[in-house]
């Protein structure tokens, strides 16, 4: 069977405030899906309802076709979960904590030992395997939490900002772990504030704002659909670019809408027409023979989409 999660009319109200508003979303297959949205959009609320930590006001959440609300134990049996930064009993060691997790999941002792060694190595915690967790830093605890999530090699992974509390090296390692996971038969669904992380590891993205799903699609479709307009590109030359050249040859390149100067060698161009237009502008800039050394988007495509769809007040 192919792994899946599904929210069916999933709604959660806290008094008069609707944190999640009739979410309908089905994610199926071996892939990695980024769950995006600003603070308070309803991401954690959604994931908590998928794990029965909070209860829906309406609707249901399904993991592999099993309702979490009807049978949480069965639904979570093939699912690894990491919500917020859980605390583990401080007097236990990572090995003991994973022993407990493996036992509760019904793994046998040799399998627990083998998987414990593997996941602790994966999160770089082998040398701390027999030290008390209570003395660990937040980042170290989060590594143990990630190890616990991976222990049973689950088909579905629900991760709520897994990089929280980690140092830059830890963030990069978590990214590598997630990237490695999606190559196997597994569905990874994770919320993140780090758009670069999502672009780096995700095949698809879902964007939530004010409790409503704005879109769920592949990265390519999302950027294609929302970025038919202009993209900001920063260009840098070895030699200074005179104003008349910028006003003339550069502004006249097909697709260039505006230009602004950053310094004598650097300009910011607004290019309309998508990737094909960008390619034509790049060729035109090279043909100027001014020593083009950089041509890069000021913001990632996903960031452009995010900013265009999510505003402080209302969704676009």
């Amino acid at each position, binding site marked *: *069977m192919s792994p*899946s999660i*599904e929210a*069916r009319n999933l709604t959660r109200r806290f008094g008069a405030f609707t944190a999640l508003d009739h979410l*309908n979303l*089905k*994610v*199926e297959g071996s892939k990695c899906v980024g769950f995006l949205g600003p603070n308070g959009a309803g991401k954690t609320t959604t994931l*908590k309802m998928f*794990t029965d*930590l*909070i*209860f829906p006001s309406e609707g249901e959440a*399904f993991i*592999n*076709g*099993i*309702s979490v609300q009807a049978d*949480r*134990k*069965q*639904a*979570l*049996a*093939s*699912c690894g*979960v*990491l*919500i*917020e*930064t*859980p*605390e*583990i*009993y401080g*007097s*236990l060691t990572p090995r*003991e904590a994973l*022993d*407990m*997790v493996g*036992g*509760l*999941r*019904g*793994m046998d002792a040799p399998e627990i030992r083998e998987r414990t060694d593997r996941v602790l190595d994966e999160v770089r915690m082998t040398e701390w395997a027999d030290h*008390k967790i209570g003395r660990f830093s937040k980042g170290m605890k989060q590594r143990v*939490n990630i190890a*616990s*999530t991976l222990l*049973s090699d*689950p*088909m579905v992974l629900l991760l709520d900002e897994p990089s929280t509390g980690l140092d830059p090296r830890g963030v990069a390692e978590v990214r590598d772990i997630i990237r490695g996971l999606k190559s196997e038969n597994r569905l990874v669904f994770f919320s993140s504030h780090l758009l670069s992380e999502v672009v780096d590891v995700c095949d698809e993205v*879902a964007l939530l704002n004010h409790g409503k*799903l*704005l*879109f*769920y*699609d592949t990265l390519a479709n999302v950027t294609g659909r929302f970025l038919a307009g202009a993209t900001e590109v920063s260009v840098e030359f070895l030699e200074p670019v005179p104003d008349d050249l910028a006003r003339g040859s550069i502004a006249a390149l097909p697709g260039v809408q505006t230009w602004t100067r950053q310094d004598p060698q650097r300009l910011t161009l607004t290019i309309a027409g998508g990737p094909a237009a960008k390619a034509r502008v790049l060729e035109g800039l090279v043909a100027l023979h001014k020593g083009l050394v950089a041509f890069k988007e000021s913001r990632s495509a996903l960031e452009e989409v995010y900013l265009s769809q999510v505003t402080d007040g209302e*969704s676009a």
Partner: protein
Amino acid sequence: MSAAPVASAPGAPVEPPRADGVPGTWTQALLLSRYQLRDYLRARRFVLMMAIVAAIGAILTFVLAYFHGAGLTGSSDAFYGSTWGGGVYVVMIFSGIIFGGDAIAGEFQNKTGYFLMGLPIRRTSVYVGKFLAALGASLVAVLFYLAILVGNGAYYMGAGAFPVTLLESFGIALLYLLALLGAVFLFSSMFKNSLYAVLVVAVLFLFGFTIIEELIVALVKIEPWFIIDYARPVIAYPFTSPLPAHVVTSTGPRGGTTTTYNPTYAEGLAILTGYFLITAVAGLFFFEREEFT
């Protein structure tokens, strides 16, 4: 805005391949209790509990030695009726507070619940597992206290230091401990804040219930069978002969009457059993409905 791949029709539930191996509710509860107990026994709170018992034991030993027993060491019933029957509940109340006060509230406040509740486990297993662990840790403290008493008993009374009545009383004390922990877990389930839970439990069990019981008897003049404290004296009943009268009415010097109530043996056991069953179920009811917001 519409979402692209949205489900329109319910998918048929499919059995995931790794679901069958998940242990049953009670097996998970026992397994969890093992690790929770290990956590308790290594924690500072356990050292604190042992220090409290050691202090109580030291004071008791000193008093017995200083007053040469003062009549207590003449018979094992008199000795254990006072030291065990009249004292073990203090040890149990402290252990209930220390091991049970934040057992459930702490799952929310300390976020340990986020670690456990992401696993395929029913809340019943978590509740029962933590209850068994608190019971186990409390029993260690109670046995330590008993060891101190038996040591003193052996010193003063030799071979008669371990009477059969002590086993009977131990059984009743165990029932009291179950009832106490049931109530402690109920309060712990009702609060998401460990401090509130511990405070309420400490106030109620250390003096709150006693005050309520006395007020009820004095003002309402009914038998306070619904207060757990009322049933506590039955712990000492195996050493008591004859048992106190159920209702004692005495007339004061100005003609007013005062009524005091003593639980019958059966009544005391029924109260403790009832407390345990009702509070355990009520506590689980609350825990099942609490959200990790």
